[in-house]
């Protein structure tokens, strides 16, 4: 279990205010996203993991190390926080280099690693300038550079795409994917659910300090048995298909696609649904062009589980 990030029954209270309550997690390597509305406890989980706040209860271990093992932990962990503040008067280069020098490495090596990290986030030209003059996107990038400069095994990123332009966003996502493929733990919090979908191996849904669901997006979707699932079927006779499905299967909702060449069907039993759909296709009554889950993404799951107001449904 030493390759996992483990939370065992962890709670955190800020005085009488709940941060997170009885969170248990076991996170394997790969990209994991923490999803939840503002104030749901995402940052608290990340801060607990890195010892910036102490748990009121429970136990945390990161690849076998506790947050109290500061020297060992931060040799293998990089944390790009969402705090958009920096030590005064530093250039981007000094900021990254200072962080590396505190690892106790030779200056030559620190210089080489700082250079690599800054190039990796494509901030080479601005590295010599004071951070105070950086744009928000540049500040985000230099924080990311500092977090990855020492080649950590665990990378914790709190809202890392905030403030980035579309190009920088795509580059960052590509970088996260590359790091995930290399076997790193990449833990990302984000409220930009479309992006979560594309990059995450696993998702952790949290709201009001409570863990709602955890696993791959598909697994999480499976866990939501009581929630009907929506499927988009592209076909030549969507009305006929909808009528057939309603007659045989317990579909709970049907809605024609705007272009009239498909239908959204909502079912409570997806296995039976596909079996019946195959039968209809085999009968040749309807020519089916494509079938795709319409809500098997994080956004839909999130809406199901948490509701638009951020309260558990």
């Amino acid at each position: 279990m030493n390759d996992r990030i483990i939370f065992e029954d962890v709670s955190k209270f800020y005085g009488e205010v709940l941060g997170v309550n009885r969170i248990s997690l076991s996170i394997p390597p790969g990209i994991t996203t923490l999803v939840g509305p503002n104030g749901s406890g995402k940052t608290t989980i990340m801060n607990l993991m890195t010892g910036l706040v102490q748990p009121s209860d429970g136990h945390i271990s990161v690849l076998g190390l506790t947050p109290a093992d500061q020297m060992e932990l931060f040799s293998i962990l990089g944390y790009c926080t969402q705090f958009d503040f920096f030590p005064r008067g530093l250039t981007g280069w000094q900021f990254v280099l200072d962080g590396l020098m505190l690892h106790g490495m030779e200056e030559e090596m620190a210089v080489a690693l700082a250079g690599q990290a800054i190039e990796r986030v494509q901030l080479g030209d601005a590295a010599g300038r004071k951070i105070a003059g950086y744009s928000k996107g540049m500040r985000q990038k230099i924080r990311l550079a500092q977090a990855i400069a020492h080649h950590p095994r665990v990378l914790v990123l709190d809202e890392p795409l905030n403030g980035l332009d579309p190009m920088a966003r795509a580059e960052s996502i590509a970088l996260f994917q590359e790091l995930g493929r290399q076997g790193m733990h990449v833990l990302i919090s984000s409220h930009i659910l479309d992006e979560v979908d594309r990059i995450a191996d696993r998702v952790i849904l949290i709201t009001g300090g409570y863990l709602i669901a955890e696993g791959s997006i598909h697994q999480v979707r499976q866990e939501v048995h009581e929630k009907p699932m929506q499927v988009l079927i592209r076909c030549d006779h969507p009305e006929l298909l909808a009528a057939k499905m309603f007659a045989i299967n317990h579909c709970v909702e049907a809605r024609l696609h705007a272009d009239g060449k498909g239908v959204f069907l909502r079912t409570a039993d997806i296995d039976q649904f596909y079996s019946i759909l195959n039968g209809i296709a085999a009968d040749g009554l309807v020519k089916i062009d494509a079938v795709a889950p319409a809500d098997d993404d994080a956004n839909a799951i999130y809406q199901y589980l948490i509701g638009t107001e951020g309260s558990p449904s």
Partner: protein
Amino acid sequence: MTQLRLADRARELAQQPWGLWWLQAQRLTRIELRRNLFSWKATWIYCLAFIPTVIISIHMLVGRHPSFAIGEDTNILAGIVQLYYIRLGVFFGCLGIFSRLIRGEMIERSLHFYLLSPVRREVLLLAKFAAGSISAVFLFGSAIVADFALMYAGFGAAGSDYIFNGPGMGQLQAYLLIVVLACLGYGAVFLLLSMMFRNPAPAAMLALGWETINPVLPSLLQKISVASYLRHLMPVAVGADGIFALLTVETEPVSGWAATAGLLGLIAIVLAYSCYRIRTLEIRYSTE
């Protein structure tokens, strides 16, 4: 059993990465000095340190300096050290320098960068304390040396003779020792107060009050004071009238070595408690 346990503990201590901690502490101190030694925000502290220097300079330029007045000027210099530097200049200067080290970073929301580095928090705290001490000693030490030089410069050959062939050099060494100990003592206290209170200024005012009334407290309570130890190290006794007399009361004679050791012990206790506090320090900028 106890001996075995002690031996285990000693072996455990010897196995700690002292070399790495030392290297990290040096680098942290360097970073801190680069950031904080010269800063516009600290201008008021420079003024605090060099106000007497300016006054003594004027005195040197416009005053008359017959050689028989050396004794009087020596007493004035001793008064400046004891009544101004120790009571006000170093006190408030250290409040400004040391309360910024942790609390200032909390207010600027940049402390987490240090706490997320692979450095033990105790090493971080002690390195910051070292950086603050170097800044304070550099500033107030320079001021004392300048004050001393200017005070006797006006006397010409008699002044040189007093410094190099008389008691002058010994007095300067004593003043420098007092300033170093004052910076370390007040520094440790204000570093701790800045971790305990969001705004350490009211607590510092209480500390100032405590230091002021300390000479009339019972002898046990006198030991919990920076100024009480420093009084015993003064090379020249300062006589004062009125309210100032309270600041120069010496109730219980203590040798210089005992005073120095006592103050260093007090500093060690305060720093040890600060190390304990920083172990459990949480980053909650929203409450700052």
